[in-house]
């Protein structure tokens, strides 16, 4: 009895650490079997480049989820950042100024959201939902629902070889995860993000100005979202008001599938990165099979639900609980 319990726990521990990696490998194997071109170096690099904005947003989303918050706005803000960059660029001809203005827009919006959430104690789901609507709305109204083309050497540079053949989007992903890791593990901000997610009241009683640190956290998330906006714009060199629609949902799913509990208080960026790879491989693999959008959504939704299921069951095994909680249903 004892032995079987500890075996289960060990299995749970293994699965909750490496479950996503196992699922990722299975998914890669499946797509490699279905499509001989999938496992080429060229394609795997494309997988990362195509999902660079998602990977970067997921860093900020990890902060949000560890602190028991959520951010629905990144997809809309990315569209708005693109529009702002394009408009400033068209009017000034200076790409550097345009990029700074774009990232500043994202930071200001996230600080605004953060202040409302932290100072007024309003649920982040509803505040960022409002921004999900209005930021997308602003992107549409400012462009009159049209796309704006940005023709600048910067766009070519972002799509070129970069340093040592590593393209700029991939370098930016690496930078985002390094900075994110540093902030989470080596700074006060990171400590308080975990503390707020674990037990906010205890953090307040310990003298932490949680409202202030939440606002700082949202500001940092704004930087990640802003950079993702730049990456997303330079992918096609076009600012489209419909850009990055639903990207926030992919980011949330990536963080959670990676094994970061949605209830907050714990988690890390390595898990998030595996989750991002999982979603990126899923998006790319399904797309390469040349299926229609409808089947793409169906398979994607089903795979996500299966992955979530395994994630939850492995965590239950780790804690030594029954894999499904039926007690209440049976008792009643």
């Amino acid at each position, binding site marked *: 009895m004892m032995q079987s319990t500890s075996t289960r726990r060990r299995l749970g521990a293994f699965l909750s650490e490496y479950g996503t990696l196992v699922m990722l490998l299975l998914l890669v194997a499946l797509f490699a079997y279905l499509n001989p071109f999938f496992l080429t170096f060229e394609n795997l690099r494309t997988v990362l480049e195509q999902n660079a904005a998602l990977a970067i947003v997921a860093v900020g989303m990890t902060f949000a989820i560890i602190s028991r918050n*959520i951010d629905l706005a990144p997809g809309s803000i990315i569209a708005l950042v693109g529009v702002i960059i394009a408009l400033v660029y068209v009017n000034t001809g200076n790409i550097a100024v345009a990029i700074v203005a774009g990232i500043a827009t994202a930071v200001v919006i996230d600080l605004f959201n953060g202040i*409302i959430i932290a100072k*007024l*104690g*309003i*649920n982040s*789901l*509803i*505040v960022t*939902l*409002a*921004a*999900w*609507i*209005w*930021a*997308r*709305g*602003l992107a*549409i*109204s400012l462009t*009159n*629902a049209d796309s704006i083309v940005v023709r600048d050497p910067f766009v070519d540079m972002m799509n070129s070889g970069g340093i040592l053949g590593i393209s700029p989007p991939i370098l930016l992903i690496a930078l985002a995860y390094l900075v994110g890791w540093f902030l989470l593990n080596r700074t006060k901000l990171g400590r308080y993000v975990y503390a707020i997610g674990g037990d906010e009241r205890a953090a307040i009683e310990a003298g932490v100005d949680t409202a202030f640190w939440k606002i700082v956290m949202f500001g940092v998330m704004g930087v990640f979202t802003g950079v993702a906006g730049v990456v997303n714009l330079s992918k096609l060199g076009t600012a489209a008001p419909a850009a990055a629609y639903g990207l926030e*949902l992919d980011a*949330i*799913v990536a963080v*959670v599938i990676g094994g970061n509990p*949605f*209830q907050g208080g714990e988690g890390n960026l390595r898990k998030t990165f595996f989750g991002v790879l999982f979603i990126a491989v899923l998006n790319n693999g399904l797309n390469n099979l040349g299926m*229609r*959008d*409808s*089947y*793409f*959504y*169906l*398979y*994607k*939704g*089903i795979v*996500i*639900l299966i992955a*979530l*299921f395994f994630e*939850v*069951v492995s965590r*239950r095994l780790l804690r030594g609980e029954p894999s*499904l*909680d*039926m007690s*209440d*249903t049976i008792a*009643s």
Partner: protein
Amino acid sequence: MSEMVRQPAPRATTQTPEANDTRARVLNILSTYSTLWVVIALLILFGVTSDKFLSGTNLINIVKQASVVGVIGIGMTLVILIGGIDLSVGSVVLLTSGTAAVLMASYGFDALPAIVAGLAIGALVGLANGVIVEIVGISPVIATLGMLIALKGLGQIVINNTWVFVTNSFFEALATERFLFLPLLAWVMLILYAIMSVVMQRTRFGHYIYAIGNNSVAARLAGLPVVRLKIIVYVLCGLFAAIAGMMTASELGIVGPPVGSGLEFDAIAAVVLGGTRLSGGIGRVERTLLGALLLTMVLNYMTLRGIPDVWQATVTGFIVLGAVLLDRFARRSAEA
């Protein structure tokens, strides 16, 4: 000197309770019915600034336009009251309206069996949501998000990625026929609200839902079948979304791939505008109707004033934000 300083103090304390009481009562009324006041204020404002707005045809139009979001909002209110959320409702609208349309157009189904099939699918999706959230234990935001994506795909597969006409006479009548000025669609919504507000306030089921929302653990200790009740709430939410799906098929007369997209967020906005707390336990079904009407009124007014459609989302977003802030400030002053 010190006497003079001290003296007013006791007087102040004898006076303030009364003054505070009145102030608190006023603020309480304001915060309890804040959505209603906003609706009334906007009715007056819009009526004064647009001569068409307060016309009978336009007001009837608003109620009709609000009916789909309104009906989804009923189920969404229940789910939010138990501390959950359901993001799959927009996809359920697509899947159920698509299924009913295809059954009637390609398989010669009559209206009744097509509707029964649509509603059954909605209830099944709700059951799946409930089981995934309450028994498997996946957080409702991401579980129903997965369902949103999968069912959007399934719905588009059912209608074969094209537009399917709804030519059934019953569905047409539902959108065009009127009873006491109002289109039948609006009556469906109003009757559902009437039923559910009675259920929530007067039946044991309603009390259980509030009990679970206030304190799930206490409700379980008190012997309530918490998991089973929560699953029933998700089933109801799927069912109401399916009813909204039938209403969409009737209103549009055609079902296509983009149908239902984004409706989940409109419904959540209506619930929040109605003052229901996202943390659960506090809120009223009938206030969601006010929230849905409020959203529709503003969009309708913008159209009347010739404000370009491209501004709709911006304004809607700020209304949601404004309503949340207003509710928060009203509650803070009432508590103070």
